[in-house]
């Protein structure tokens, strides 16, 4: 460790040269975090914070550097129990800084570990603990590292696409059983760098976007809020153990332009994007109409290839006023949810003429015209699962709701 501290000060001085910035980040590793889920349940977490006064968040803090910057990342492990590391996922650092315990180093209780690298191509990358990674990543020890162009401007990369805002959406899941002490306080042998650990079956019940789910996604900092003909750059990243199928509203004109921190030579215009664990994508959107809709994110089991859940990120394309009102006062309500063969759609004064129901793979399974009742009963016999319910007027989608058939 002494050697690393000496190296740190050497690099601190040697990195300061013409044309380079030096960027310092500190992550404090803790394993007694708490996270309140959308249903009020509070779970124990592991995670990273940037000060002692804050809880470790899920995901961890988003870190930034500009292309060519010399980055020093200080991991300060104040947690009891197993050691931790930082793997700089996709940043292609050298072996010593790669964060894999038996091939580089691990950071024990009350130790600092320093990681050094030069920020590579602009893009979206992860950092995460690589000690018993199956448990520590699920526990919350991950975040996103964003590299911007050398001048820090809002352009995807030198010679790339300018944008007015970027939005980061990091997908993951939580299985509450994995957050019990019996799992999180796993065995570890401080004389070994490979820790053999038993893990439970994985049955996630929280499906997250930026650590939030369900009504938490209605918060304005999650919603995609933009204006007609304004270009936004979406950074989509999956650090969970399920695949994501992301469906953008067609009117957003989504164009997939980069992946894993590199440009795509032939950008793909598509309203559907699959993101597997560990992947990142850059998506440009430039809506052509005013719109209230949502980005649909399906969480697909890697073994059964079936969707386990769908989450919706609100989209508002209009002027920048009134977002809170729009998000809080949705025009329709679906209840009870989950339910068996019947549910109701209640309108809060918004006229509509059609209801369409899609299964988790996007197939239209039911269509029904509206009969002008304020509370409409839907009776339908479908297999258990997650369904998307679209409410339309004159073939325009007014709202999209989720129904869980039990």
């Amino acid at each position: 460790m002494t050697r690393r501290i000496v190296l740190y000060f050497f690099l601190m001085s040697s990195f300061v040269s013409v044309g380079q910035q030096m960027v310092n980040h500190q992550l404090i590793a803790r394993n007694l975090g708490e996270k309140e889920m959308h249903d009020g349940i509070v779970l124990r977490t592991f995670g990273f914070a940037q000060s002692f006064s804050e809880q470790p968040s899920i995901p961890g803090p988003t870190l930034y550097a500009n292309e060519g910057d010399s980055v020093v990342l200080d991991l300060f492990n104040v947690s009891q129990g197993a050691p931790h590391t930082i793997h700089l996922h996709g940043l292609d650092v050298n072996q010593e800084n790669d964060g894999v315990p038996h091939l580089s180093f691990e950071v024990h209780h009350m130790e600092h570990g320093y990681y050094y690298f030069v920020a590579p191509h602009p893009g979206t990358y992860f950092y995460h603990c690589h000690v018993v990674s199956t448990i520590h990543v699920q526990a919350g020890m991950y975040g996103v590292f964003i590299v911007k162009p050398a001048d820090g401007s809002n352009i995807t990369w030198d010679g790339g696409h300018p944008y007015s805002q970027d939005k980061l959406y990091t997908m993951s899941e939580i299985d509450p059983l994995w957050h019990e002490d019996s799992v999180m306080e796993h065995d570890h042998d401080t004389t070994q760098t490979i820790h053999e650990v038993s893990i439970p079956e994985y049955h996630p019940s929280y499906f997250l976007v930026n650590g939030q789910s369900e009504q938490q996604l209605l918060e304005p900092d999650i919603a995609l809020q933009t204006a007609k003909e304004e270009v936004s750059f979406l950074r989509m990243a999956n650090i969970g153990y399920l695949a994501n199928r992301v469906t953008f509203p067609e009117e957003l004109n989504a164009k997939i332009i980069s992946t894993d921190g590199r440009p795509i030579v032939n950008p793909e215009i598509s309203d559907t994007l699959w993101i597997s664990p560990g992947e990142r994508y850059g998506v440009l959107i430039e809506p052509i109409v005013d719109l209230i809709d949502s980005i649909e994110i399906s969480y697909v089991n890697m073994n059964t290839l079936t969707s386990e859940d769908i989450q919706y990120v609100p989209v508002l394309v209009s002027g920048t006023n009134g977002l809170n009102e729009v998000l809080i006062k949705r025009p329709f309500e679906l209840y009870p949810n989950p339910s068996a063969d019947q549910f109701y759609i209640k309108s809060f004064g918004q006229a509509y003429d059609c209801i369409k129901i899609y299964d988790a793979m996007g197939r239209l399974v039911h269509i029904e015209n509206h009969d002008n009742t304020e509370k409409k009963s839907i009776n339908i016999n479908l297999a258990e699962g997650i369904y998307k319910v679209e409410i339309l007027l004159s073939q325009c989608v007014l709202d999209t709701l989720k129904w869980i058939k039990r």
Partner: protein
Amino acid sequence: MVFLKESAILFLCITTAFNSFSGQISDTIYINSGTLQTFNGSSLPYKCFNSSNVFDKRNAILSYSISDTVSLTIFNNDISPHRISSIELGVTSGLISPGMNETVSIHSAASGTFIYHDSENYPNNKILGLAGMIVFRNNSSASFYWNLKELDTLWINEISSNNQLSAEYNPKFFLINGNHNPDITGDSSARIVGNVGDTIHIHIANTGNAIHSIHFHGYHLKVEQSSAHPGHEGRIKDTFPINPMEVLTLELVPHQPGEYPVHDHNLIAVTGANIYPNGMFLTMLIEP
């Protein structure tokens, strides 16, 4: 030691096939049944296409030159009938009864990685192990071969006993060329070894039922071939999803030395029988 010997034989087999004179060549594989021993002591009935009469849990990797037309003879040493198919190569044999053999002609106009599998009693015979890869190459660069497959012990036992499936797919073993971490690193056909600046090709076939998401530490690689998404060819990435019964060919030109992991980033797949570490995790070694 036994394993290393097997790896050396396999490597020799691959090399020999590739170094044969281009043109009309003959090759032979055998359908063998045997027992796959898992690391935690379970014994599973298993079947493979092997390059000899002796059962090996690793399906034969058939590697040829692009100019070769291959006359491939398949001997069925099993007690059930089988058939060999390669959909992308347009090859399907007749039904091969126990104790009989069949010869098919294989040729590819384009280089790439392809899957061959038992299309009889599909997909159950494939789930029992009968699927491997054929590679047609147009270069002599270093090449490595990964046949990805998971094992659901319940499914394998049910198919073996009554050819029926009663439960959702829930694999507990995640294998590359029939091996899990740390044994995969001892497989010379799988473990990437090279030097900075080399051009290295990695041929990946997913013959399992699950999606895998292979993440490389230390390097970005180029997608040379994607059977599922030809439009993705040319992309430079560090993480590569691969769907069931699809293939990828990746090109790696390492820019730095070191020993780096490659693993499935569905981190459930770096376990085995609920034990971490295990599964689809190996390291690559790049010398200066």
